[in-house]
């Protein structure tokens, strides 16, 4: 093994207690940042789940719509306006609205009803694990997610409830479709939704437009904007970004998560800087000797940086294991924590960067070292 990593490794493991304190700091930081960013990504997934799942190049939405979970009914002439626009391949309407869900055993709760064109092969709902999406074609049939059974007073497939004083029956059950707002999604057909929402037979909340192969999305969008001045025409990416911005930043939820992650990074830097500085002070005589023997400042800096990187590697591995345990433990909870290869990679870079930044204090201490002290001991 080359001498720099060897010396760094030996210095690091020489004082086990100091190493443990360093690693606790790094692990704490990694887990905190992983969980905070994991929740952030989980929130993104939940906020954008409907948009990502529904197939649509363009979304016709009511003016001022902030997100998918902020629906308003459109005028009702959108379908024909869209279908008569050159370059449009297909269209699907979604009737979405807040409803009052009354449980069969008493009590009620708010829910978000999502009516889709199931008869035409809509992508909503998905992850159907009991019953089937086609079963929703039956009158007053709805689908709910199994995680909302308790909240909606449902025990099994076939149980009944009331939406806006109209009886519905659960004909399908999905898994893992939770909303960011915590309001349960209730899926049904477009026509049933219109009935339950007291909308006219032509009205919908969103009109999804799929552009024909070869047609320009921007051209179609411009044509639609011209034809539907009372609505907004958004691309999938625009609507997704608008939804994320609203829920994560306008409500402050995302800022809180990012602040939590930043706090984790700061705490990590402080703890690592403190312990690395203390370790460097403990080994100051050795660094002075190295300097006296002719070690360049770069050589000594490399030893300290290597100590920081080794700490980062060990801390990152332990932190990731712990983070994955936390994620695994939370998989059945209402909290969605997501770990992606990208997040893992970012955490690795962040951990190494954090430790290298923390090493700067130690390096500043060492570069001021006077090698002449080797003669005074």
């Amino acid at each position, binding site marked *: 093994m*080359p*001498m*720099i990593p*060897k*010396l760094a490794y*030996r*210095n690091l493991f*020489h004082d086990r207690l100091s190493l443990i304190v360093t690693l606790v700091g790094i692990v704490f930081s990694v887990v905190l940042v992983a969980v905070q960013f994991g929740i952030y990504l989980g929130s993104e997934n939940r906020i954008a789940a409907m948009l990502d799942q529904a197939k649509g190049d363009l979304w016709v939405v009511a003016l001022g719509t902030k997100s998918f979970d902020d629906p308003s009914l459109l005028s009702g002439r959108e379908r024909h306006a869209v279908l008569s626009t050159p370059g449009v391949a297909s269209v699907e309407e979604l009737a979405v609205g807040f409803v009052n869900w009354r449980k069969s055993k008493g009590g009620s709760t708010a829910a978000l009803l999502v009516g889709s064109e199931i008869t035409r092969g809509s992508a909503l709902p998905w992850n159907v694990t009991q019953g089937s999406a086609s079963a929703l074609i039956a009158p007053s049939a709805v689908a709910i997610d199994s995680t909302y059974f308790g909240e909606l007073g449902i025990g099994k497939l076939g149980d009944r409830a009331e939406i806006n004083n109209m009886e519905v029956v659960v004909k399908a059950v999905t898994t893992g479709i939770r909303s960011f707002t915590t309001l349960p999604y209730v899926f049904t057909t477009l026509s049933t939704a219109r009935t339950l929402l007291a909308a006219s037979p032509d009205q919908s909340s969103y009109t999804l437009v799929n552009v024909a192969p070869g047609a320009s999305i921007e051209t179609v969008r411009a044509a639609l904007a011209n034809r539907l001045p009372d609505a907004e025409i958004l691309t999938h990416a625009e609507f997704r970004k608008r939804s994320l911005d609203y829920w994560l930043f306008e409500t402050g939820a995302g800022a809180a998560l990012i602040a939590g992650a930043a706090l984790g990074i700061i705490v990590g830097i402080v703890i690592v800087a403190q312990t690395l500085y203390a370790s460097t002070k403990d080994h100051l*005589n*050795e660094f002075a*000797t*190295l*300097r*006296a*023997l*002719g*070690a*360049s*400042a770069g*050589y000594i800096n490399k030893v300290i940086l290597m100590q920081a990187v080794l700490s980062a590697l060990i801390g990152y591995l332990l932190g990731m294991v712990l983070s994955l345990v936390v994620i695994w433990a939370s998989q059945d909870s209402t909290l969605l924590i997501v770990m992606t290869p990208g997040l893992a990679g970012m955490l690795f870079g962040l951990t190494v960067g954090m430790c290298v930044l923390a090493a700067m204090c130690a390096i500043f201490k060492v570069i001021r070292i006077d*090698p*002449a002290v*080797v*003669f*005074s*001991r």
Partner: protein
Amino acid sequence: MTHSGITMLEARDITKVYRSGAGDVMPLKGVNVDLMAGELTLLMGPSGSGKTTLLSILGCILSPTSGSLRVAGIPTKGLNAEGMADLRRKHVGFVFQAYNLVPTLTALENVMLALDLRGASLSDAPYLAWEALDAVGLSHRAHVSPSKLSGGEKQRVSIARALAGSPSVILADEPTAALDSENGKAVMALLAEVAKDTRRAVLVVTHDHRTLEYGDRMIRIEDGRIASRARRRPTSARGEFDLIEAA
């Protein structure tokens, strides 16, 4: 004495002034020193005479306030801290009173560290370090950490470390001060042996008169000035010197 007549280190009119609020302190007041290849020179003097400051300057650790220094023919004037470090790395080996071995490394690794600094390849370093330890009679203790070595053994490792990479000058700061008589003699004998190599000069700063018998030359420093120079009498037993210059 086997000196080759080659000057490995040449210091001329070295002065050092430390400026402070309480007034200037001048530990060196125009010192001339020549270290010849193949010779062991003893630098002696009372405490506060400027020995350590002179050693720091000769070892390119401190810069003189005025005067010139050449190590292995290379002038130090104008060198910055990194340039001085480079010169130390390539041409100066140190033996310290407190050994200054890295406690987390074994004896072999301590020597390998010096070789690594001097640019030895990863494949050559263990062999060269072993060779250096063998030269000081410690190859059998190569894998022992400094905490398990005796004082004499530590100093021999320190000498092996100084020898590794074959520097032109070896500077030893009170190498026997922390050792008992027997180990002190062994260490001095080793340094005297090292000094026989006509490619290097050895300077030993000492106040230990037991070391006299190992010196080829002796320089006495008092109050920042060279008080006397003496050369070991060729026909005499070790320890007797002929005065060649007195202040």
